[in-house]
C-alpha cells in the first residue's frame, strides 16, 4: 500500500486532503476540515458573512491605527453635529466626536460582549443539556425545569432585572445576557444527546467500561458541538441587539464608552435634524448582525452531518 | 410470450463532487408476463435499474438508453404527467420497508382508496369495497379492522401486505418489487411471497423481483439476472442456477453457509477486476 503511494507521482495538496486513506492523525483531521471548508466556501453568502466578521475582527484589532480621531474627546467648539463628509467621514455627534472613530472603537466593545457571552453561555448550555439528556430520570427533570424557568421570562426583561440588581456597566450586561441566553443551548444539546444516547456506538463505549463523565465529555459533546456552534453564531446578532438594547436603556456600557447601542440612544434626540448620529451606529449593528447570520447559515450547511449524504 | 418491457443499454449516472458515478452501465433485458429476478450486492445498480424503469431516479441523475419501452410507450420520451399516470396505475413498485413507504398519519384503508381514486373515477363506496377486497386478497384476516388502522399499529408483515394491496389495487401490468421481504422475519417472508406469487399468477402480471438473496430469488422467479458493478454478468433460468457459468454467480451461491454442509472456512468471493470491465 505504502509502496504504491511512494512510487506514484507526488499528490497535489487537494488530493492529499481529499484522500480516502489518510496516513496520519493530522491528515485525517485536516481532510475533514477541508471537506467542511469546501462545503462552506461553495455558499457565497456565507463567505460574505465570514468576510464581514473578519473585517470586524481586523477593525477591532487595529482600532487605534484606523480611527482618524479620538473616540472620546470631541471638538465641542468647531465640530458639533456635523453632517457626514469632509474631515468627519460619518459626521460628528453632539459632543463633537467623530462617529466613525467611535464606531471603530465600539467594535471592540461589541466583540467583547459577543465573545464573553459565547464563552459563558455555550458551555453552560452544553453541559446542562448533555448531562440532562444522558442521565435522564430526575436529573433530567430538575435540570430541564430550571431551564424552563429561565426560558419563561422574556430575555431583555430578565437581563434588565439582573442589570438592575448588579448595577449598570458592560461587565454586568455581559453576565446578564449570558445568564439569559444559555437555556436554548441546553435544549439543543439535550435534544441532540437524546438522539445519540441509545445508539450502538454509545453502547459500545459503555461496553469499554468508560465512565458516564467520559462518555458525556468525549463522545457525546463533540456530536452536539456543531449544531451548538451554528446556533450560537445565529444568536450573535441577537446578543449584539440585546447588548445594544441595554446600552440604549442606559444599563449597558456607560458614557463615554462608544458602545453602539448607547450611541443610538444619545442620537435619539437629534433624529429629526441630524439623522446620522443615530443611523450610523444602527447601520453598524445591522451589518455585523447580518454577517453573523450569514455565517451561521453557512456553518449550518457545512457542519450538519445530515447534509453529508452524497 | 409477448414482450411487455424492453430495456436496451440502460445507463444511470450520478454527478458527485468527485466526478460522475455510473450506477448502471448498459443493462439490457426484456420482460414478458413472467417473474424476473435481479440479483446483486449493494452497489451493483439493481435498485437503480428498477427505479429508472419506474421513473423514480433522482432528478439530478441522468438516464440514457437505446430503448426503454413499456408496452409500446417510450419511457424516456414521456412527459412528467404521462409518467405519473403510468406510475401506480400500469406500473407499480413495492419497496423494502413498509414503515417508510406508508404514510404514517393516514389510515391504511384511506391510503389504498386514495391510490385507487387518483387513477380511476370510482365512487367512495365502490373504492372502499374494492380496498376491502384487496386487503382480503393479500390474506389479511380482518380487513374491516385493518382498514382503519394506522401503519404504526400493524406488524411488519401486515404492513407489507397492506403495501402490496395498495400497489396492486389499480391492477398494474408490471410490478417492481425492490427487496419486498428483506425487512421481514423468515416465516412471514414466505407468506408474503406466497401472496405475491398468487396475485402475479392470477392477474397475469409481469414481475421484476430485486433482491440481494440469490437463493430466495431463484426459488421464486423464472429467470434471474445477476448484476455486478452496474452491469449484467449473467442471465440464467432459475432452475439452471446450479450450472451458472460466471464465477461471480457461482461465488455468490457458494459463499452462503448451508445447513448440513460442513465447510470451514466458507469459500469467499475473489473479485476480479475484469468482471467490472
Amino acid at each position, binding site marked *: *500500500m*505504502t509502496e504504491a503511494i511512494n512510487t506514484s507521482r507526488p499528490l497535489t495538496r487537494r488530493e492529499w486532503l481529499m484522500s*480516502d*486513506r*489518510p*496516513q*496520519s*492523525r493530522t491528515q*485525517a483531521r485536516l481532510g475533514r476540515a477541508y471537506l467542511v471548508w469546501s462545503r462552506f466556501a461553495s455558499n457565497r453568502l456565507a463567505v460574505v458573512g465570514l468576510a464581514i466578521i473578519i473585517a470586524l475582527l481586523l477593525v477591532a484589532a487595529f482600532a487605534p491605527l484606523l480611527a482618524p480621531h479620538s473616540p472620546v474627546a470631541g471638538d465641542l467648539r468647531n465640530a458639533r453635529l456635523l453632517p457626514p463628509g469632509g474631515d468627519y467621514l460619518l459626521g460628528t455627534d453632539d459632543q463633537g466626536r467623530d462617529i466613525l472613530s467611535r464606531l471603530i472603537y465600539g467594535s471592540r466593545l461589541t466583540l467583547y460582549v459577543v465573545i464573553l457571552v459565547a464563552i459563558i453561555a455555550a458551555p453552560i448550555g452544553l453541559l446542562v443539556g448533555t448531562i440532562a439528556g444522558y442521565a435522564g430520570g430526575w436529573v433530567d427533570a430538575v435540570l430541564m425545569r430550571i431551564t424552563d424557568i429561565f426560558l419563561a421570562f422574556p430575555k431583555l426583561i430578565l437581563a434588565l432585572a439582573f442589570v438592575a440588581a448588579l448595577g449598570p456597566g458592560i461587565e454586568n450586561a455581559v453576565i446578564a445576557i449570558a445568564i439569559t441566553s444559555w437555556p436554548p443551548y441546553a435544549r439543543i444539546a439535550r435534544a441532540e444527546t437524546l438522539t445519540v444516547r441509545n*445508539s*450502538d*456506538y454509545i*453502547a*459500545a*463505549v*459503555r*461496553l*469499554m*467500561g*468508560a465512565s458516564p463523565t*467520559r462518555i458525556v465529555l468525549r*463522545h457525546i459533546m463533540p*456530536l452536539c458541538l456543531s449544531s451548538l456552534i451554528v446556533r450560537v453564531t445565529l444568536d450573535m446578532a441577537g446578543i449584539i441587539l440585546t447588548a445594544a438594547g441595554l446600552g440604549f436603556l442606559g444599563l449597558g456600557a456607560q458614557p463615554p464608552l462608544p458602545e453602539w447601542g448607547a450611541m443610538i440612544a444619545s442620537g435619539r434626540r437629534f433624529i429629526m435634524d441630524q439623522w446620522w448620529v443615530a443611523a450610523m451606529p444602527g447601520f453598524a449593528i445591522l451589518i455585523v448582525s447580518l454577517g453573523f447570520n450569514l455565517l451561521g447559515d453557512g456553518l449550518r450547511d457545512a457542519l450538519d452531518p445530515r447534509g453529508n449524504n452524497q | 410470450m409477448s414482450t411487455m418491457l424492453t430495456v436496451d443499454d440502460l445507463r444511470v449516472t450520478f454527478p458527485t463532487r468527485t466526478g460522475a458515478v455510473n450506477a448502471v452501465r448498459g443493462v439490457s433485458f426484456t420482460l414478458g408476463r413472467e417473474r424476473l429476478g435481479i440479483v446483486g*450486492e*449493494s452497489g451493483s445498480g439493481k435498485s437503480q435499474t428498477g427505479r429508472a424503469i419506474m421513473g423514480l431516479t433522482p432528478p439530478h441523475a441522468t438516464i440514457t438508453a437505446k430503448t426503454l419501452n413499456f408496452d409500446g410507450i417510450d419511457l424516456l420520451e414521456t412527459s412528467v404527467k404521462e409518467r405519473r399516470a403510468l406510475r401506480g396505475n400500469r406500473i407499480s413498485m413495492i419497496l423494502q420497508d413498509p414503515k417508510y413507504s406508508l404514510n404514517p398519519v393516514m389510515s391504511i384503508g384511506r391510503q389504498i382508496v386514495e391510490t385507487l381514486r387518483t387513477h380511476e373515477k370510482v365512487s367512495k363506496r365502490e373504492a372502499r369495497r374494492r380496498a376491502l377486497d384487496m386487503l382480503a386478497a393479500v390474506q389479511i384476516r380482518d380487513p374491516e379492522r385493518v382498514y382503519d388502522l394506522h401503519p404504526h399499529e400493524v406488524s*411488519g408483515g401486515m404492513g407489507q401486505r397492506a403495501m402490496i394491496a395498495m400497489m396492486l389495487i389499480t391492477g398494474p401490468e408490471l410490478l417492481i418489487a425492490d427487496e419486498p421481504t428483506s425487512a421481514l*422475519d*423468515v*416465516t*412471514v*417472508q*414466505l407468506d408474503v*411471497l*406466497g401472496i405475491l*406469487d398468487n396475485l402475479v*399468477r392470477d392477474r397475469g402480471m409481469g414481475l421484476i423481483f430485486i433482491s*440481494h*438473496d*440469490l*437463493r*430466495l430469488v*431463484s*426459488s*421464486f422467479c423464472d429467470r434471474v439476472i445477476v448484476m455486478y458493478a452496474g452491469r449484467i454478468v449473467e442471465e440464467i433460468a432459475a432452475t439452471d442456477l446450479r450450472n451458472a457459468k460466471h464465477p461471480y454467480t457461482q*461465488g*455468490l451461491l457458494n*459463499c*452462503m*453457509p*448451508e*445447513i*448440513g454442509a*460442513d*465447510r*470451514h*472456512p*466458507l*469459500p*469467499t*468471493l475473489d473479485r476480479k477486476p475484469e468482471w467490472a470491465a
Partner: protein
Amino acid sequence: MTPSLKIDNLEVTFNRFRALRGVSLEVVPGESFGLVGESGSGKSTLLRAVAGLAPVTAGTIEVNGNLLGASRTKAFYREVQMVFQDPYGSLHPRQTVDRLLLEPLAVHGFGDIERRILRALDEVGLGSSFRFRYSHQLSGGQRQRVAIARALILEPSILLLDEPTSALDASVQAEVLNLLEKIRRDRKLTFVMVSHDLAVVTHMCDRLMVMQHGAEVERLTASELARRHVTQDYTRNLLVASQGFVRPVVQNA
C-alpha cells in the same frame, strides 16, 4: 469446569413488556453457542442484558463463576465484549478508526498502545492504511472488522455477537464469518452468537437455542439440526423457511 457464562431464569422487562421470560443457559469455555429466533424473540435482549445494556428484573448471570451485580465493573468488560448488528450505527461518526481503538486502551490504562492498535488492525485483516480513516470512508464489511477489532483489543474471553453479519452482503458475510472463526480458534474465545439465520448459526455454533416470545423453544446441537432432528413445530417452520420459497402445486391446471 466453571462455565464461562451461566444464566439462570433471566427476566427482562421494558415498561411492563416482558422481553425475556425466565431463560436459563450455560456456555462452557471455548464453546460457541447460538441463539436463533425472529424479531421479538428476546435473543438480542438476552445479549444486551448480559452486557448490562438491558434492565434485568429477575434471575442471575454468572461470568466465569462470578455473580454479576446490578452494574458492571471495568473488570467485567475486560472479560466480555460485544459486536453489534449494524456496522453503520456502531462506530462513532466523528472518530477515526485510530481513536475508536484507542478509547478502550485509554479507559483501561493499557500501555504499549501503538503496537496493540496495529496488531488489532492486522488481526482483522485491515492493515495500518485504515488506521486514520473515518467510519464513512469504510465499507460495511470494513466497519464490521473495525468493530471486531475494537471488541478484541481488550483481550476478552467471551465475545457476544449480535447478528454480526445480517447487514452485510453475502460475500462479505462469508469473509466476516471466516474471520470470526479464525479469531475464536486463535484466541480460544467463547462465543455467544445471535442470528435470525439458521444456516449462519449452524455454521458457527456447536449448540444453539431456538427462542420465541422471550422464552426458549428448544435446545439443539448443530448436528441435530443438520440432520433435521427437531422436536418443535416452530423450529421446523424456521427450517422450512430457510430453504427458500416453495411454490405450492396448483391444483386445477
